[in-house]
């Protein structure tokens, strides 16, 4: 059973930056773009990561250091064993003329999406943004891809500004309006993409994150307020329709105890 634990040796590590690496692992499971796996670092913890690419015998995950687990993971070397299970959740729809919008590490799942679209000969445009060049994984690869436009807040690479600034250009440049907007990245960015898509009446699928423990819809940790939708099963990719039942956008998310931190003054229920 794919949901049961299997450990595998790391085959290769690609260091994009000191704090950003891609791990190449044996392909013991098949993931759709947007689906994620749980990665177990024996003796440490287990955390969710999107699959960022695959080959006939390998899958890749791309990890950014943000805390204790990801830092330990980035210290792993080829030959070290990781536990792997999944894939969990539901992925992006594969649609011709997709518009991919990624922020920082959110470009990881979009990379597998771009790979699948290419494999099927489906056209897409990919707006890949980050705060700075160091936050963009696979920079070389992205720069070589004619379907990609790069954005950094600090202008260190690509166009200066956020991906949202590329939005109007992208709509103008594509011969037909995109048939699907696929977004992954920080939640404020996603909510902005959602808003923009609503304005342009474009269908949208966005990849959200919540604290996750089980990945199989039991622990209740990732259930969204309002509809009670489980991000690990019915997500992490949500359609506009799925997003509508949710009342917690903009609120600080629930932590590992299930408690939502007290609302900061700025946040408001939409």
């Amino acid at each position: 059973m794919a949901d049961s634990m299997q450990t595998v040796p790391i085959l290769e590590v690609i260091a994009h930056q000191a704090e950003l690496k891609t791990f190449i692992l044996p392909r013991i499971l098949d993931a759709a773009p947007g689906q994620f796996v749980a990665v177990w670092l024996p003796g440490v913890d287990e955390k969710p990561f999107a699959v960022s690419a695959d080959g006939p015998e390998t899958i890749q995950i791309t990890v950014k250091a943000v805390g204790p687990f990801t830092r330990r993971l980035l210290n792993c070397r080829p030959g070290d064993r990781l536990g792997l299970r999944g894939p969990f959740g539901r992925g992006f729809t594969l649609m011709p003329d997709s518009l991919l919008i990624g922020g920082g590490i959110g470009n990881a799942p979009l990379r597998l999406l771009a790979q699948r679209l290419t494999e099927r000969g489906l056209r897409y445009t990919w707006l890949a943004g980050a705060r700075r060049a160091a936050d963009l994984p696979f920079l070389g690869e992205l720069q070589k891809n004619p379907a990609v436009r790069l954005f950094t807040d600090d202008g260190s690479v690509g166009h200066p500004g956020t991906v949202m600034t590329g939005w109007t250009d992208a709509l103008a440049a594509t011969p037909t309006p995109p048939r699907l907007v696929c977004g992954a990245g920080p939640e404020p960015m996603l909510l902005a993409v959602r808003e923009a898509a609503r304005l342009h009446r474009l269908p949208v699928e966005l990849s959200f994150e919540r604290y996750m423990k089980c990945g199989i819809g039991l622990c209740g940790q990732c259930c969204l307020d309002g509809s009670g939708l489980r991000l690990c099963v019915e997500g992490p990719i949500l359609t506009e329709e799925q997003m509508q039942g949710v009342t917690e956008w903009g609120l600080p998310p629930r932590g590992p105890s299930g408690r939502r931190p007290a609302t900061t003054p700025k946040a408001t229920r939409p």
Partner: protein
Amino acid sequence: MNPLAVRVAGVTFPSPLVLASGVMGLSASSLKRVADAGAGAVTTKSCGLEERKGHPCPTLLPFEHGLLNAIGLANPGVDEMAGEIAEFQARSSIPVIASIFGRTEAEFGEAAARLLARVRPALLEVNVSCPNVGSEFGQPFAADAAASARITGLVKARAGHVPVAVKLSLMCPSIAQVAKACAAAGADAITAINSVGPGMLIDPHVRRPILANQVGGLSGAAILPLAVRAVWDIARTVPLPIIGTGGVARPEDALQLILAGATAVGIGTGVYTGGLEVFGRINSFLADWLDREGLRSLDALRGAAHPARSQEAHHG
């Protein structure tokens, strides 16, 4: 009359199927979603006096025959949970069962009091049987009939008119004797069983237990026969309604627990193995079954596998 309706300690559940504690039980919205899927009652995650983050992951480990879990009683604390319960009650008419635990016997009483000061659930469920916090709390109280009875008494003293179900573990020489002690101490219902063991699975390559907590409670299909037997034994021993729980994923599983003596049937791991549709699927099956057997309620099936009754009605 709804043929699937059952009464547990004076509370009417529109279906015998109950969402078991610990599954999709952290928020009003997720409880509501399960109620909408067809559950006749929903149980919250077990809450204690303090917020707990639980154990590191892996906390949940499916294998071919069931699931090990060592969530470690992650919960937002009774005060927060009271808010979720209130929200649920505002949004749904399905009974909600508030599950509580304590690290000490006294804490059970305090947790009940703190919760009931804020909200009035349909039932209070007292989890004396969590198998995966042993390293922290020691053996589950449910291993000890006297301790379980004392806790039952402490909670009853604070519960006022809210009926109290005590949730038991199989990991003792006789679950029926523990149930009897709890009944004598005033329990209004018994929930049985909690996850079993605990158990352990080891990854041979890294030579480590896979669960961060090393051990975790065994639930799911593997334990169905243990749950059926537990319900059978309890039903023979105490006259309380039983929320029979353990390994239910298919309609026939629920029926077995009812025939063994359960009034209601808890579903936990079945939400994973059978999907959320598990509630609707079993409800339809039970309704059809009653129809086919010409019965107007589940009453005639409850405990019907026990010899005294079955010999009258059924020969081989």
